[in-house]
């Protein structure tokens, strides 16, 4: 049975990757789980400089969901490369770094710092964080900006470049194609959905930042739909993300056309969730007589739909 998948020339032992912002810098899990069992993991988003993040409260539970406005608290890319990366590099797993910026130049500079560093297999470009005032969604909400930032990162590094797209747009395929045209090697779909939870006693938002990004099972059907749309719109691989907490959730994304998936919020509920999903996935493959996980990618039987979508619009022309 083969569970391994290849994305942008990088081989993942299995298609289950821990998502950025839900797995710290990976090393927090040393001693709690075996990092070498992961398909891979994506570090918490990093800017050039350290970030303090947003005031508290930063997290609120909603029905089947988690609303967060952490604000990308982090140590900054140079401290990360110097102090944290050597510890990560000791583990036999694929490590991607989620990179952020207030400006196009900052994204490119963070990418350059990562370029020569051992222990980084690729860069996930965060153009979709809803919880920062500058950057973030500004790049992911305008296809021209998406193109510009991805092209700048592409130029700055030889590492695989994987933009993480926002669901807070009318048509994700426009952004998927913009990223592909700019030289992306793969896409991560999706980041959190912009939400607002209100404390009715105080009539104030439940998060200090105000709005937040919604994750968890509540967003899964939206995420599957958007990942499916993106996968049909581009020829580069898509990594599906959104509310996965068991193997059948992961399989939905794979069947919809994603080559791998990321597990996010469920890591908070159970740090051992990856191992559980992996064994469930193996059971499913045995039962379905699937030899290679790659065989099920994009096998969605969707009545009345043409096998490949029409590509009728150019993005940045």
């Amino acid at each position, binding site marked *: 049975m083969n569970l391994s998948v290849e994305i942008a020339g990088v081989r993942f032992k299995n298609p289950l990757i821990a998502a950025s912002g839900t797995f*710290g810098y990976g090393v927090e899990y040393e001693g*709690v789980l075996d990092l070498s069992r992961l398909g891979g993991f994506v570090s918490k988003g990093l800017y050039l400089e350290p970030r303090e993040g947003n005031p*508290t409260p930063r997290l609120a*539970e909603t029905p089947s969901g988690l609303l967060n406005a952490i604000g990308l608290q982090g140590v900054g890319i140079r401290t990360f490369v110097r102090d944290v990366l050597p510890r990560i590099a000791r583990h036999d797993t694929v490590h991607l770094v989620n990179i952020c910026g207030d400006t196009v130049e900052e994204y490119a500079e963070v990418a350059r710092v990562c370029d020569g560093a051992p222990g980084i297999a690729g860069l996930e470009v965060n153009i979709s964080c809803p919880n920062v005032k*500058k950057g973030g969604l500004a790049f992911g909400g305008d296809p021209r900006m998406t193109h510009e930032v991805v092209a700048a990162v592409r130029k700055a590094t030889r590492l695989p470049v994987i933009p993480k797209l926002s669901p807070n747009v009318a048509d994700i395929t426009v952004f998927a194609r913009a990223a592909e045209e700019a030289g992306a090697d793969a896409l991560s779909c999706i980041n959190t959905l912009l939400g607002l939870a209100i404390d009715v006693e105080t009539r104030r938002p439940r998060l200090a930042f105000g709005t937040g990004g919604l994750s968890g099972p509540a967003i899964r059907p939206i995420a599957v739909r958007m990942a499916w749309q993106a996968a049909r719109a581009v020829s580069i691989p898509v990594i599906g993300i959104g509310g996965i907490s*068991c193997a059948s959730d992961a399989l939905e994304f794979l069947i919809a056309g994603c080559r791998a998936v990321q597990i996010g919020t469920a*890591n908070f509920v159970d740090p051992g969730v990856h191992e559980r999903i992996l064994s469930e996935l193996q059971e499913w493959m045995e039962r379905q007589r699937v030899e290679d996980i790659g065989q099920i990618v994009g096998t969605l039987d969707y009545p009345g739909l043409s096998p490949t979508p029409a590509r009728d619009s150019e993005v940045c022309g």
Partner: protein
Amino acid sequence: MIAQMVANRIAPLVHREGLGGGYFLLTFRHRETAVEARAGQFVMIKAGSSAELPLRRPFSIMTTDPERETFTLFVKEVGAGSRALCALSPGEGAQCLGPLGRHFTPPPEGTEALLVAGGYGVAPFQLFGALLQGRGGSGRLFYGGRTALDLPLLDRLSRGGVPVVPATEDGSVGHHGRVTGAVAEWLDGIRGPARLYACGPEAMLHAVARLAGERALAAEVSLDPWMGCGLGTCLSCVVPIQRRGEARPKYRCACTEGPVFDAARVVWPGEASSREHGEEAGA
């Protein structure tokens, strides 16, 4: 702190005792926590085995039984997470991650330990009281609540361990007034060195920190901010802490760098300075 083994696994409930008023004592089998947990440490726990939300909840470890490989939590039914936990029957499992966090630091020899508990914040002090007794040190537990109903462990704690001084705001049992008033009175009457340890509502912790500050006493407080993961990755339980030599406070995770902090290093609400809602927020 010594490096500890943290284990994530299903912990079966072995004993459940209702104390009335929505309070329960829940005993689970979980070897690492039973063997290694120290006073002030906690577990992240949730009924059932699904990885679906809601999140696990943090609970202070009240007692441990290393031989039986069990530990006991003092839980009040408040929301969905604690209700599901209190509804478990013996034999049913909970997902448990622990032991987690920084524990209370025992006082130097000859220093009296004053343990200040508000409501169900009393949980860590049974383990701490036992530790103090084992060391032959002197200690006293000040156990406060609004009424006698908020002190469901009073009889149990009074039967053994360190002496207990109850305090209720309505005067229904013990000292009439806030628990910090009882602590201040006690401090007025003693000559030797003392150190404060507190767990309870934030306002009480802040009052203990002020009391310690006024009398130049060391104090440790166990903070209870909203916690998501217990491992320092969700970054939701951060609290502003300003260590010696630092120009400004830094957000630190209560789950990994706390929950027990030096009270003098905590930037309390209302005391905040540059960190709050300034230009940097959201950037």
